[in-house]
């Protein structure tokens, strides 16, 4: 682990900016910063967004687990619960369908000149995040903590070596991508 680099804060801000620039560049080149492309995905007419996500997950999943085996990386799974991940995810989805961008692609869309993203989406997300901060302590105990499972990963859930999950998931993603190509979506 490159812990000496991780603790250098100003350097980390530059690394964040550099990785973000590459991320935004890729999202734009993939068409994922366009409302039309995201909506076509949500209407199940064109699978560009899912193809990008699944090939990113396939590459990243194998890469991160190799790096972890080599001692170069450690995992940081987010904690979650049914009340947080599922209900929050569905609320997010409603906004996703209305806006047609997500928090990453809305930033990219703003960068390529989409005013509905900049003045509608970005402003809206800031308001929504602020509203959530205001109600967080009220919904924490009754909703967010329901069905709590914490920082659990699938290999931990099944009590197996991570590769026992990585390999079949990789094959499943490859098969899904092949099906999309055959169906020409």
């Amino acid at each position, binding site marked *: 682990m490159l812990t000496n680099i991780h603790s250098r804060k100003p350097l980390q801000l530059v690394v964040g900016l550099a990785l973000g620039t590459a991320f935004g560049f890729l999202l734009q080149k993939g068409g994922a910063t366009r409302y039309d492309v995201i909506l076509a995905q949500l209407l199940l007419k064109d699978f560009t967004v899912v193809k990008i996500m699944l090939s990113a997950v396939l590459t990243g999943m194998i890469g991160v687990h190799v790096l972890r085996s080599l001692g170069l990386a450690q*995992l940081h799974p987010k904690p979650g619960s049914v009340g947080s991940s599922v209900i*929050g995810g569905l609320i997010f989805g409603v906004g996703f369908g209305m806006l047609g961008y997500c928090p990453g692609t809305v930033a990219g869309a703003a960068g390529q000149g*989409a005013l509905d993203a900049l003045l*509608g989406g970005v402003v809206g997300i800031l308001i929504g995040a602020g509203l959530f901060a205001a109600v967080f302590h009220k919904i924490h105990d009754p909703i967010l903590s329901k069905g709590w499972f914490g920082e659990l990963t699938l290999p931990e859930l099944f009590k197996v070596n991570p590769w026992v999950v990585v390999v079949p998931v990789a094959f499943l993603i490859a098969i899904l991508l092949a099906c999309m190509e055959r169906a020409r979506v």
Partner: protein
Amino acid sequence: MEWLTMDCWSPYAVGIGIGVLSCLAFVLSDKPIGCSTAFARTSGMLEKLLRGKKVHEKPYYQKFAPVVDWEWMLVVGVILGAFLSSMLSGTFGSEWVPAVWQASVGPSPALRWVVALAGGVVMGFGARWAGGCTSGHGISGTLQLAVSGWLAAVSFFAGGIATAMFIYYVLL
């Protein structure tokens, strides 16, 4: 260097690139890529401008302090990267109403703005409720095989597909 000025790359090339970036983020910064926490921090910064230091007393901002951090710079980078990519391909241009919206809903910028703003509010609220977005859960969470990531990603798309279909096939 013709590939830099191309309009569009293969989704697989883009996806593999994002997967490599995720690995770099783990190695160089010990962090998974994510975007929505930066919005929560910015919201806290704006609230601080209005209400002053009292903002730090909110339990949520004790968890996610309103400061510029690695992920905040990542989101600034996303804006910059998309700007560079669209300038290089000549596709940069200000636009109020996307083509698909215009064809089905109409050319009114005001209506598009209202729905985008409302959608943004709901999405920002939901992203913080779920503790992440399409990047933090949908890509970084799923690739780490996190249970929270897979549950959230499936819920994002279930909600998104249902809402988009309701707008385009029921309302219109």
